[in-house]
């Protein structure tokens, strides 16, 4: 009858064991759950995501603003206007007709490729960012001749309606700021 007694003892200690295991499982779930919540609500992860969104939008906008085909000026300029906001947008909109006429006379096709881009400043609350973009612009003249030109652009982005748009864009000056 020893076997039966042993079995009885084992059966009685089982609930305790089960309870302990359940508690451990519960503790594990609580710990990992908290960890997951912390990771999902990490401010710096959100900031990093904003940085990458701003950079992607900035690179695309800079590329758009350096791309124009004389055969389809209207669509190109629409793209310019949709990628910009603020003063830059107003400038482009007011000079649009004059510019379109110029391009159509010159019959040039300009394409651009972003070589590299980086965000240098980001204020995700105010919705402002600055980007550096190294760009290769290819201009195809009316006689079919192609010329490549590397340029370095400084852009300022402003977030409007949840989207990052260029509010200022210029070439980084060369030799202008010596001994500074």
């Amino acid at each position, binding site marked *: 009858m020893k076997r039966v007694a042993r079995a009885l003892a084992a059966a009685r200690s089982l609930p305790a064991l*089960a309870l302990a295991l359940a508690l451990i499982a519960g503790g594990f779930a609580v710990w990992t759950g908290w960890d997951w919540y912390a990771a999902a609500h990490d401010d710096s992860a959100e900031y990093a995501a904003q940085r990458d969104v701003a950079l992607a939008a900035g690179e695309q906008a800079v590329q758009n603003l350096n791309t124009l085909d004389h055969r389809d000026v209207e669509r190109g300029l629409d793209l310019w206007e949709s990628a910009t906001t603020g003063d830059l947008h107003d400038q482009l909109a007011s000079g649009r007709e004059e510019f379109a006429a110029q391009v159509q006379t010159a019959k040039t096709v300009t394409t651009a490729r972003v070589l590299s881009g980086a965000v240098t400043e980001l204020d995700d609350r105010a919705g402002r960012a600055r980007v550096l973009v190294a760009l290769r612009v290819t201009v195809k003249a009316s006689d079919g001749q192609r010329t490549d030109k590397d340029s370095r652009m400084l852009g300022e982005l402003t977030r409007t309606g949840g989207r990052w748009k260029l509010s200022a864009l210029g070439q*980084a000056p060369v030799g202008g700021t010596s001994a500074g």
Partner: protein
Amino acid sequence: MTWLLRDESTRKPAAVADGTPGPEPGTAPADDTAVDAVDVSEAESDGDQAPSRGRLSVRLRRIAVAVLAVALVLAGCGFFYGAHQVRSTASARNRALTDTEATTRVAGDVGNALARVFSYTPDGLDAAERSARSVLDGRAARQYAELLGRIRAELTEQRVTLSTQAVRVGVLELDGDSARLLVFLDQVARRDRAAATSAAAQLTVTARWEHDRWRIVDIRTR
């Protein structure tokens, strides 16, 4: 989950001891061996018997606890995986700008290093080379040595003075002890008495954190 299995197998002998009728009521247990024989057959047909309500509820409770424990473990694994996914995205791993201090540090170090190694006077080439030894490493160091070896004679002969300045530095990636940067350089060269000419350069630079400072290991023009 092994405890659940053990539960099933160890509980059966107890049921026999309680006097639950066997599948063949005619065979009365004569000795220990007989009990064992009944035990074995009962183990298979226990479910068909009608256990008392108390025992059923104990069993249900145990199953509930087991299911709960399994569910909690699975949930834990899910959370663990989720947290790992969130943390390991490329965007979260890149500390550029999110770690302000480190970003400023690497941008400053790399900008200064480039300005130092690419600025020299006809008689001060050695100083530039010394700077290069302390801030350049790997492929960048080899490239620099090769470049200087090629132009050294020319530079001294033509009395070339070059001054370089990093006008803008942007950090592309920063991950622990390695960083990639985009640097806009301005270079002003002067040949003896001739007028100065300025040039612009765009570089992507790879830097590595070594012995408490950033060293440039690769330079590529864009």
